[in-house]
Structures are given as structure tokens and as C-alpha cells.
């Protein structure tokens, strides 16, 4: 039975022994794993994934489709990496196995989806055009008001509910490449406009740029960036991520910026990882390290500045969902909360289990629908306990997932990017 594995291992670079061998199977990671806590089976746990990876690599198990599927069931929330006392990183290992699968048997459709469509902003923009038309013609309102939504099959209904009101035009088309500071020109920063932010949450990113400009930053937002690479990474295509990384690094090298700011948690964590991703590439290692060293999440960057006090009051109870890609991946935990607390009138309420994954995890709602929904329900129960009118979260994936949960549960809670609230509190620019 092992011949396949042996052949396969000869062709690829398998993860190193020390990434799985020392798992002592203590089980600590089971406590924090969202997929384990819903399915309640060992196969869906970090410890289980490490065991499967090890047994595959040691030749005790075939690399079957089901073995790989267990790696795809991982939400990549990193909670296990964080808690493991031994330093095993089950989430990373699950990704490494996806990469292994692609190295052994590359799939054509991934070349097209991640290499062509998703890497080029204009391709995504075209693909999502029908959706924008559906919403902008008022069809969505019609579907809702006639109760037609309930005729949709459950899964489609939830996907539909996830969608925010999609802007008619992607932000990439009209965000100026240079936004001058509203005050003095103290900082020159690059802004990385993520695909999801541009397409789905353009209001949020417009607000981010305004808040930067209001705090003495001259903002340069190059249009020719490509996707950060997270979707390709999630599907095991390291080669494509590296390609996108090189492109993006080159784009910012031509600008003189002290920091590269993004308001998407996922993009931020990927961009910060370019250094590690290209460390063995002699031409790019230093450039990548330099690039990643300058990447900042917007809340992280703002907290490093002497911030101007927002003038307007916002009277509401607000809570905060901590995106996995921000809190655990980038260790940015206090900053978004601190920014919300700056705003007069906002009553901040800590969300119970604020850092528990919401179940969005990239495309899990589509590919692993049932588990994703259970994880989401846990978040919604916590949200009800917090008793907030607004929930802030600096990640488009989380925002979509939260929206879907709120619609499913008929809650009356607004989902926003924290910086959008800050922008509202600053009010419209005076000039």
C-alpha cells in the first residue's frame, strides 16, 4: 500500500520531521479547535491532523483523498498553533500537506482559478458583475420583500445572506492613486487595497484612506497590485503565491513609503509572510524581508501615530470580533479595541470568546457548509450575550460571515470595519 506514498515523497519536498514528530498527543489543542468542538471527532482535530500527516509521511497511511480532505477541513484559525506547548503548528502542517498534494498532482482548475482569475483584480471584477447587477437593480430588495428568499435552497440562501450590499463600482476604479494628507505631510504610506475590500467593502477602504489622510499621511494606493495570494495558499499553490508576492513587492519598491498599510486582516497576514515565503530565493529574500517588515494592519499603524481625537459622538453599544488573521496571525489584539474606545459615546463591550473563529475561514462556508454554520452559531450566541448594536471586525471574510449569521438569526446588529466607525467619528473633512 505504501508504494504511492514513497513515489510521491520522492517527487516533492515534504514537511520536516520536527514539524510533526514531537507531538506528544496531550490533547490541549482539542479544547480550542472550532472544527473539533463542533464535530466532536478526533479526525477533525488538530491532534488528529498531525497524526494523519505523520502516518502519511511515515508510510503507514496512503495519501488518500480522504486524508487530504481532513487537511481541507481545517479552518486555518491558528488557535492550535498558538496553544501547543511543544511548538507543533498543526495549522501550518495542514497547509503544508495541501501544498504537498499540489506538488504531487497539480490540478489544472487551480491554475485557472488562482493563477488567472483570482490573481487579477479585473478578472474578479468581471466575474462578479452579475451579482452587482442583481443588487443594484433593486432585485435584492424585491426578493426580500416578496419573501422569495425563503424559496431559495438553504445553502444558497445563506450564501446570499453573506453578501453585503455590493458597491456598484469596485473601489479600485476610483480610489485615487495618491491621496494628499488633510493636514501636514508627516508620513508617506503605501495602501494595499485587497480584492474583497475593493469589491465588497469599498466604503470601508475609502474610510481607511481618509482616516490616514486625516492623521497627516500622504497615501499612495497603487492600482496595479495583485491578489495577496491567500486563496492560492489555502489551496496549496505555493508557486502561485510566490509569483504574486514578487509582483506586489516590486510594485511597492517603486514607491518611497515608510509603511505598507492594509485594512484587510487576511491580506495583512499574507503580506507579512512574504519574507518567510521567499527566504530561500536568493534574488528575492532580502527584498521580501524588507517588504514584509514594513507591512502594517491599519489599526496597528494608526496606534503608532499621535492620533487626532475624533470630534463626533457615536452613541451606540459596540463589540469587537477578533479576526484570526489579525489577532493570532499578526498578534494585533489591543489596537482595534483601543481605537474604538477613542470614540466618545461608544460603549465598548467585550464579546465573549471574541477570538474564537467565526467559521468564515476563506471559503469554508461554501466548501464545508455545515461545520461552518455551527461555528457561526456559537459566535451568534456570544453576540446575543454581548448585547451590542454594532459589531466591528477588520476582515472582509469575517464581516460577510457575521452578516450571514445576523440575517439567519434575525438580529438587529450592524457589521462594520472598526476604521469605518473611526471615520464616522471624525466626520466629513472640513476642506
Amino acid at each position, binding site marked *: 500500500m505504501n508504494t504511492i506514498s514513497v513515489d510521491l515523497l520522492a517527487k516533492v519536498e515534504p514537511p520536516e520531521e520536527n514539524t510533526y*514528530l*514531537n507531538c*506528544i*498527543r*496531550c*490533547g*490541549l489543542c*482539542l*479544547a480550542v479547535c472550532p472544527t473539533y468542538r463542533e464535530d*466532536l*471527532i*478526533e*479526525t477533525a*482535530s488538530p*491532534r*488528529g491532523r498531525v*497524526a*494523519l500527516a505523520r*502516518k502519511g509521511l511515515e508510510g*503507514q*497511511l*496512503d495519501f*488518500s483523498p*480522504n*486524508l487530504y480532505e*481532513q487537511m481541507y477541513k481545517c479552518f486555518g484559525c491558528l488557535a492550535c498553533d498558538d496553544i*501547543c*506547548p*511543544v*511548538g507543533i503548528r498543526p495549522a501550518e502542517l495542514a497547509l503544508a500537506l495541501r501544498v504537498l498534494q499540489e506538488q504531487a498532482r497539480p490540478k489544472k482548475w487551480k491554475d485557472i482559478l488562482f493563477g488567472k482569475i483570482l490573481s487579477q483584480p479585473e478578472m474578479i471584477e468581471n466575474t462578479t458583475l452579475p451579482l452587482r447587477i442583481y443588487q443594484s437593480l433593486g432585485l435584492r430588495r424585491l426578493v426580500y420583500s416578496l419573501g422569495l428568499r425563503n424559496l431559495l435552497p438553504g445553502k444558497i440562501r445563506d450564501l446570499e445572506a453573506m453578501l453585503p450590499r455590493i458597491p456598484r463600482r469596485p473601489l479600485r476604479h476610483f480610489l485615487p492613486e495618491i491621496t494628499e494628507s488633510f493636514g501636514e505631510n508627516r508620513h508617506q504610506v503605501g495602501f494595499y487595497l485587497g480584492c474583497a475590500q475593493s469589491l465588497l467593502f469599498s466604503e470601508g477602504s475609502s474610510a481607511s484612506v481618509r482616516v490616514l489622510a486625516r492623521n497627516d499621511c500622504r497615501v499612495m494606493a497603487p492600482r496595479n497590485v495583485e491578489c495577496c495570494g491567500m486563496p492560492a495558499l489555502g489551496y496549496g499553490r505555493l508557486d502561485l503565491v510566490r509569483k504574486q508576492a514578487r509582483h506586489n513587492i516590486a510594485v511597492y519598491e517603486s514607491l518611497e513609503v515608510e509603511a505598507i498599510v492594509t485594512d484587510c486582516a487576511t491580506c495583512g497576514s499574507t503580506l507579512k509572510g512574504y519574507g518567510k515565503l521567499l527566504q530561500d530565493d536568493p534574488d528575492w529574500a532580502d527584498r521580501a524581508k524588507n517588504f514584509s517588515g514594513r507591512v502594517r494592519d491599519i489599526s496597528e499603524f494608526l496606534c503608532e501615530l499621535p492620533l487626532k481625537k475624533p470630534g463626533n459622538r457615536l452613541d451606540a453599544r459596540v463589540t469587537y470580533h477578533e479576526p484570526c488573521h489579525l489577532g493570532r496571525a499578526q498578534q494585533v489584539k489591543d489596537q482595534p479595541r483601543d481605537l474604538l474606545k477613542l470614540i466618545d459615546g461608544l460603549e465598548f463591550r467585550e464579546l465573549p470568546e471574541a477570538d474564537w473563529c467565526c467559521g468564515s475561514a476563506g471559503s469554508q462556508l461554501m466548501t464545508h457548509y455545515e461545520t461552518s454554520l455551527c461555528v457561526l452559531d456559537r459566535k451568534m450566541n456570544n453576540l446575543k450575550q454581548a448585547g451590542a448594536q454594532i459589531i466591528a471586525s477588520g476582515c472582509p471574510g469575517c464581516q460577510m460571515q457575521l452578516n450571514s449569521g445576523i440575517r439567519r438569526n434575525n438580529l438587529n446588529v450592524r457589521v462594520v470595519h472598526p476604521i469605518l466607525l473611526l471615520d464616522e467619528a471624525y466626520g466629513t473633512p472640513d476642506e
Partner: protein
Amino acid sequence: MNKQIINLLIRILGPKAVLFTPEDLATYSYDGTFVESNPGVVVLPETTQQVSQVVQLAAEKHLPVVPRGMGSGLAAGSVPFPDNSVVISLTRMNHTREIDTLNAIVKTEAGVITADLQAAVEKHGLFYPPDPSSIRHSTIGGNIACNAGGPRCLKYGVTGDYVLGLTVVLADGRVLNTGGEVIKDVTGYDLKRLFTGSEGTLGLITEATLRLIAKPQFTRTALIDFVSLENASQTVNAVLSSGIVPATLELMDQTALVCIEQAMKLGLETNIEASLLIETDGNDERTVAHEIENVVRVCEANGARSVKLAQGAAERDKLWLARRSISPSLARKAPNKLGEDITVPRSAIPEVIRKIRGISAHYELPIVIFGHAGDGNLHPNILFDKRQPDQWEKVEAMVAEIFEAALAVGGTLSGEHGIGTLKLPYLEKALGPVSIDVQKQIKTSLDPNNIFNPGKMFID
């Protein structure tokens, strides 16, 4: 596992509760030890009724049944040996049924995670004291089956002291309800005690009624550093004979401290031979504070180098996080570890520790010592590397000598982790032939065909 049996199981439990792919079987092959063996099939029942039907089927077809909680056990108790084993995992029986605040009682299914149960009762101002370090990743059923203990057991007792009643599925599938909601009960044999600590060899626990207490409102925690391990171990006795009953009295030696510090970076002092972690608690703030001051005084009189009193909940949590992380963080020092669980009379702690250090020096493999010193329950952990050819033999010899040392002073093999398969070869020596004989008779009368967890506890 043959198709027919799988179909019969699916008929009882539905398709989502019967696992049999090679990947599923591989992940149910281990527990918290390094032992491995694949089962034939894994089932995840949601009711006592379903468990009973599965056990009936297994009895009919002569299939071994291995009860499993979260697989955190440290004795290979839930590792399924015969390859036609049916693993019954209770993790989906995870509902807390009823919290009776008036009588301070909770009724729960056996698969609930212990920390979840604790949090649920604390919302009602009640308290479930047993606190194994694995509290967030083990089940109540597993805790009862192993009679788990933890730091707080010094003052509050072990899991078994809180069990009022159990629902148990027997080897022929019948459902036994034993005990109930009353605190005192001498109506017949105390069967709930029999199943407590039985490690899944007598029956499968599906539900439990547990006694609760009022939550102590105040705690004070101190971390006390000693330049010499000898002094630290003598201090344990000095504290306990001073008339104070601390809630916890934990010992950590230098290697343990170094490993925690490497793993967690909590800022612990590591340039010392041992620390004691001592806590007092109660409902009168002044008494609690007074007691910790007395403890500190006794420690200082016995050669403590420095004392750190936790200021506030965050500092206290940090100290406990450190304590809970010892066992897993040892893996940073060596790829394998074998954790023992001996318990000795308190007065013999210094002597046993001296012997253990001698064993370590003789075989030239490190032994880390930590544990619930207040109970005389120590966890000497041998660090080794299985891949080095002669190391495993050394480890086996060391284990035998550690047990020898414990038994010589009137101690036992296991305070809380249980026998499972790992300590099975030493059981007869610890208990003597009469006790083994009586226990085997009990096993035979409850489980004549030996379907529950064969190969555990006794040599069949």
C-alpha cells in the same frame, strides 16, 4: 470490520456516528501516551439507549468494547488493542442536563468537557472542585473512570468524592442506575465507587450526578523559590503539620521550571532547584490572607529563598498556567517522555525524591520531578529519545526502580492516571495476589466474556 456489523451499527446510530475509514481508525489509535493500535470501528452515540444497543450487539458478536472520552489518558487506557475493537466515544454525549442549585447537584452526560461543566455550574455560584490539569481536554466520564485528581484535591478531594450517582451500561447491555441525589446512602453496596476508577473495564458510564459546593470567594496564591530541592520537599511536611490546610501545594523542580519558561516565557526564576506553588482559599478574606502569611513564614523558616505573592487574578492565572504547562512543555527537552504518577506517604517525599535523583544519575537520563506534593503524589517524568537504540531498555529499568522506591516506603503506583496498559506489569507487586484475585472475580462476574477494555488493568 465486516460490512454487516457496520450496517447494523449504522442502523442503531445513523451514518454520521459510525466511523471506519482508514483515516478515522488511525486517529482513534492513540491517547495521551505514545502507544498506538487501530480499532475496528468507532461509534459516537448520543443517548444511553444507543450505547446499550451497541454494547448488546458487541456482546452478541463477541467484539471488544473500548470506552473513550477525549483520549487525554496517560495510561493507554483508551487505546484499543484487539483490531476488531468497537471504540465507543462519548464526546457527543456532552449535555449538562440539570443544575439543582437548592441541593447543589448537577446531572450531566458523561461526555461533557470538565471545564465546560465547571463553567456552567459557576454561573450559578456553585463549584465543582476536581481540577486535573487536563480539565479543558478531558471528559467527566474519563475523569470518573480514572478517578482523576488535581492540585485542589489536597483540600477538596478527588473526582470520586463528588460522584453521587452513575448511569452505567453493563456488559450485556443492561442499564444500571446506581446512587442518586442524596449525600448519604448506604442502601446496598456502593456500586458507584466500584465503577469510579474502573478505567472502562467494568462498564460504560453514560451519565453522572455530581455533588457541588459553594464557590470559595477568596484565594491567595504564593510561589516560593528554594535553592535546594531537599529543603523544598521538607517544607511540604512543615507546612502541612503547621495546622493549615492549603487548597493546593504543588512542587516543581528546576528542569520543570526551565521547560515552562522556554515554552511560555512567563518570567519565572529558573536559577533555583525547586519552587512550591501554594494556595489558600475560603470565604473569609482575612483568614485566607492570614493563612498564606503563615505558610510563607513556615517556608522562610525552612530555607525558602524568595516568595512571590500573586497580586490579582491575572497574576494568579499566570502561575497556574505555568503549573498546567509543565507536562506538555517537557517535550521541548526531549522527543519522548514517560510520566509516572507514584504516591507516597507525605513524610517520605524527601527520601523518595533523593532516590529518584539517584536513579536519574545512575542511568544518565534526566528525570523531571513535579506534582501534587501535598498529597504525596509525584510525577517523575523520564525524558528520552525512543530512536536511540538502548534508551527504551534503560527507561524500563528506571520505571521499575521508581516503583520499587515508592512501594518500599508504603506508596502506590498511581495516584490519578490509572493503570491502563502502561503500569499493568507492576500491578501484582503493588497489590498482592489476594487483592488481584478479588478484583479479577469482580471483573468476571460483571463482564464474564471480557468484552470491556480487554488487556487493561489486569493480565488476562
